[in-house]
């Protein structure tokens, strides 16, 4: 019976954890395959994810091996022996406090550049700061998007020649772009799962979010903050155009936006 616990702690948990971690990327359960992120920054975030996974994985498996060892050896002892009280081992406690502390410190420094690039406006890539493509307005339950007219800059206030869209955010591929994220009602969250971008939209704030689609294509955009009964309806997409076709596309959008229906006759 005592051995059974040994099997449980040493065999089932750690082995299951390792197997699941190895299988998950292929099964698309949410773990990224390396190189699978659709943006360069996403690659760095995936790298951090795996680094932390490996560190915690080694600690997890190691702890279980230690636990298994203790249970195994203890189960050989006669059952009628009394337990004894120990105040602990000062050295041992120092060790297992300082080592994780160092690991955390390492992680804190190691991720700083990626995190800053992702979140701190001063550290945004210069190209992203230059290229503000649209204002994304989250609302219950859709994404309303406002673009400046071709050749113009996005203004804080809507302009007469602005263009509008819904649930489709058009950007050029292959270069960093910034959107201004707002919400007109409650809190939402702008989530590009395949680019590893997530940013809450907060009432009253205009939050710049930058991202870069590596390749032309369509990428999912969803709301990641439970925002009401229609939260699930907030599925949308980012359409990344080949850079050489983007300007032409925006011109066409401008024509469609200011269609007066006259030519249609």
């Amino acid at each position, binding site marked *: 019976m005592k051995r059974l616990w040994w099997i449980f702690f040493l065999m089932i948990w750690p082995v299951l954890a390792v197997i699941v971690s190895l299988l998950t990327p292929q099964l698309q359960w949410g773990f990224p395959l390396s190189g699978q992120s659709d943006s360069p920054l996403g690659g760095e975030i995936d790298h951090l994810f795996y680094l932390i996974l490996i560190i915690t994985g080694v600690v997890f498996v190691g702890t279980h091996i230690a636990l298994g060892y203790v249970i195994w050896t203890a189960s050989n002892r006669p059952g009628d022996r009394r337990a004894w009280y120990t105040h602990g081992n000062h050295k041992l406690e120092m060790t297992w406090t300082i080592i994780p502390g160092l690991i955390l410190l390492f992680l804190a420094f190691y991720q700083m550049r990626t995190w800053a690039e992702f979140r701190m406006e001063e550290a945004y890539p210069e190209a992203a700061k230059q290229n503000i493509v649209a204002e994304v307005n989250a609302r*219950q339950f859709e994404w309303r998007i406002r673009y400046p007219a071709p050749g113009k800059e996005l203004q804080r206030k809507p302009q*007469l020649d602005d263009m509008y869209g*819904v649930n489709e955010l058009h950007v050029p591929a292959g270069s960093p772009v910034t959107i201004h994220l707002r919400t007109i009602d409650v809190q939402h969250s702008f989530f590009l799962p395949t680019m590893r971008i997530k940013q809450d939209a907060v009432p009253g704030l205009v939050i710049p979010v930058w991202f870069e689609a590596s390749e032309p294509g369509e990428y999912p955009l969803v709301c990641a903050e439970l925002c009401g*009964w*229609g939260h699930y309806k907030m599925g949308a997409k980012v359409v990344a155009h080949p850079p050489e076709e983007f300007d032409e596309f925006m011109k066409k959008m401008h024509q469609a936006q200011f*269609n*007066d*229906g*006259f*030519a249609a006759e």
Partner: protein
Amino acid sequence: MPFWKTCNFRCCCVPLLLVSLLAGLTGCERVDSQFRFSEETELLAPQAEQAVKQTLVANFGSPDDPRIPVFFPVERGQISLTVADFDPEKPTELLIEKPDGEVELVGKRLELLFDPEDAFDVQMEAMEEEQPNPLDGLDQLTIAGYDAETGTITLTQPLPDVELIEPGLELAAAPNSYLAEGERLYAQHCLHCHGVTGDGNGPTAQYMEPKPRDYRQGKFKFTSTGPQDRASDADLAHILREGIPGTYMPSFKMLPEEQISRLVNYVKFLAMRGETEQALNIEVGLDFASKVLEEELEDVTDPEEIQEIKADFNEELDEFILEVYPEIALFGMLDLADAWDAANDEDAIVYPTTARPEPFGPSVADPSRTSVENGRVLYLGKDAQCASCHGDAGRGDGFQTRQLQKRRDGSDYDVPGLHDDWANPLKPRDLTSDIYRGGRRPIDIFRRIHVGIKGTPMPAFGGKSLTDDQIWDIVNFVMTLPHDKGPTTSHPPAEGAVGMVGNE
């Protein structure tokens, strides 16, 4: 003793657990999944009520089995077949012209697509001769077997010996499969607001302002078609894709094209069902609402006389249902089908006859002003009277919003201000808010003014009170209202200035 065996635990937690389980079960409100009949139908005299309900069930089925007569312009998703031969000696067999490709027919419902008027004549003839209706029960027809070699269909029940079944007659197998698909999608995406019946009364509707659309009058606010026309398929699909900003109607752009068209189809189906019900209620209710009998009996006290009046009423009603009603029902539906058909006609769509001038360039309607300036003059002027509802500064606060308006029956509404055709209070659009429910392209705003907004007090100005050039000027003016740049910053004079415009 383990903690779950202590008395405390058993006394408190078990009942608590049970209660929360039960609460979970009852907390989820069961949504009624049958089509509901309208109040007016329930108010008809019992036999009339039954007749109308029967017509609706026979022609439009239920949410589990939605169906619609073939003459309505709805894509039903049928498998089309043609009769090659029919031998009345073998009434359960039907020879068909072999369809292209392989089709799965066994187990599917089969509909014989008679010309509706011919079928009507056959039924009425039988009735006059006091014969049973030969076409009765044909809606239960199912294909029991199909021999692809010979093109022979075996049926679950014999066909009647009528001349209508002849070579060349069109057949429909699985006649309403698109409607069934539409129903599933509708239940998933739309039902919780718009309701099972499309009456705009789903479980989440109570939280909404404005109320979700009630399809049953066939009125859809934002159309590209003329003021009297129904909405076109393209109009409905456009609203589904783009949503309606400023309301709870979200965009369904992410749905594939095919699903959008199934949904449009199903919404039209619900509208047609509702409109059929409404048309029948008006026709039948005029003479045979329960109220009519009550009124006749109002001052009568003699029990014999009461009996007599009742008997007369019922006799008249029976005669009406037998002889007049079937015709009213069929031709009512045929008219309705025509009206919906017309909305998809290219001619029904309203296009401007002139191009939109530059907002700050000269107006075509009045070259002495810029387009925006002339738009402002027209906006405040007597012909369009935009300001009477939308307010002098476009804030949706015109004097009509403070005046008591009249219902269609002449009585006053309970609260001052405008109301829609469903008697819900309605605010005129605040034109400075930069929200355009029916779309913000110039053509969208042009059509709002030209054909009006259906089911609301926003009238159609096109072709009557305003020329297309004048409408463009108003469009240009309205589009600049939310922006404080440009000449429109000098906002119009204060309230009561409607008459002043002529002095300019």
